[in-house]
């Protein structure tokens, strides 16, 4: 898939004409490489298939040094992926060192330290091809369109029930998530204030301009309610949702929704 792209990669203005023959990746090209390959297996597979790289011919000492450099650099970028590459080079080094040991005259195939790596490479290659095949298959939402004509819904559907508990649970979830994300204000205005804010807005929407004292039902509302009502007016003014006007001192105060045209 993407492996073909890599030959056109430019690093510091110079086109990288071919892939390095070993596992060394120029640090400047590192990010690009990481995007082009899915991981060390993918890179190794590419080198083996395209360049006939011999797994054993990799200059291990040099490679290890270079990998350590990446890890330094990648602490900022993608440490996890660096670790994956590091693990791979460790594996290669282990294989190489075992190959260098004096061996018995006959090595059964399954004892060949490279066999496991080869098995993994081939399995990964098969998955890679499988992924390409799946990707190429027609999919619903893409090449397949499912019949979805309309019909008259005649069933008399009852609206869902909502319990107070469910509502509170939903709010709890909102808060939980709000905690994770950042940057929005969870104000602390009292609920009852908010209710009165809505009431006042409704009233102003219906009646247009309303005189301040007309908003208070002094006869039936107790003092706490009147205070809350007053707080609601202040909050509305603060949030810029209403306009409060007074012609001159001691003349009537009028409230108006800021939204009224």
């Amino acid at each position, binding site marked *: 898939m993407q492996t073909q792209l890599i030959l056109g990669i430019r690093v510091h203005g110079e086109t990288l004409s071919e892939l390095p023959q070993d596992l060394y990746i120029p640090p400047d090209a590192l990010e690009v490489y990481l995007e082009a390959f899915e991981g060390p297996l993918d890179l190794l597979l590419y080198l083996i298939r395209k360049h006939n790289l011999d797994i054993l011919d990799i200059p291990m000492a040099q490679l290890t040094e270079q990998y350590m450099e990446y890890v330094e650099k990648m602490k900022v970028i993608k440490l996890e992926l660096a670790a994956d590459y590091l693990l791979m080079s460790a594996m290669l080094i282990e294989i190489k060192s075992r190959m260098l040991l004096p061996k018995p005259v006959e090595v059964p195939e399954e004892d060949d330290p490279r066999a496991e790596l080869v098995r993994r490479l081939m399995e990964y290659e098969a998955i890679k091809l499988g992924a390409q095949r799946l990707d190429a298959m027609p999919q619903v939402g893409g090449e397949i369109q499912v019949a979805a*004509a309309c019909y008259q*819904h005649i069933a008399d559907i009852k609206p*869902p029930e*909502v319990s107070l508990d469910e509502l509170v649970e939903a709010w709890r979830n*909102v808060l939980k*998530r709000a*905690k994770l994300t950042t940057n929005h204000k969870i104000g602390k205005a009292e609920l009852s204030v908010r209710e009165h804010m809505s009431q006042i807005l409704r009233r102003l*929407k219906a009646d247009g301009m309303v005189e301040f004292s007309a908003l208070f039902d002094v006869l039936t509302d107790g003092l706490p309610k009147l205070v809350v009502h007053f707080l609601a007016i202040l909050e509305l003014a603060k949030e810029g*949702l209403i306009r409060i006007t007074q012609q001159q001192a001691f003349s009537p105060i009028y409230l108006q929704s800021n939204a009224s045209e």
Partner: protein
Amino acid sequence: MKEPDNITEFKQILEAALLTAGQPLSLDDLLKLFAGRMERTTLRMLLDELKQDWAQENTAKTLELVQVATGYRFQAKPQFSKFIARLSPEKQPKYSRAVMETLAIIAYKQPVTRGDIEQIRGVAVNPNVMRQLQERDWIDVVGQREVPGRPSLYATTKHFLDDLSLRSLSELPPFEEFAQTEIPLDN
């Protein structure tokens, strides 16, 4: 299939698109099917023909092509509705999480704009969600905020309180008791 070049092919493409659309398609939508190689008047004519094709053989066809406010759509003939309805027996539906959370935000933070809700939930509000709540008469628009675009301010209705058996919003459990200290209470 190459670009269509005769009436039969034009009509087939229209038919396939309308049968799979899941919603009405406008003339503008349908013109896109032909990548600019179709006149509006021709399109209208083709749709008329298609409509008649499906209207003929009256007994055999199960769908009809109808024109609604936002465009054309195929729909099952009315006599089949009763059977189709059996596929989804009216079990008590549940509101989605999006609906419940939107409702909770409006209840606790009213009056709020859609923008406020999106900010708090961190995702866009599907217009469908607002419509469901409005159709239920649980929320309504109580004004506009005086900022560019003049977004509507939503609040819960008395009907909402009735349905939840609350006398006032202050009977909702206070949210401070869930709010952990990590929630910034700025402003």
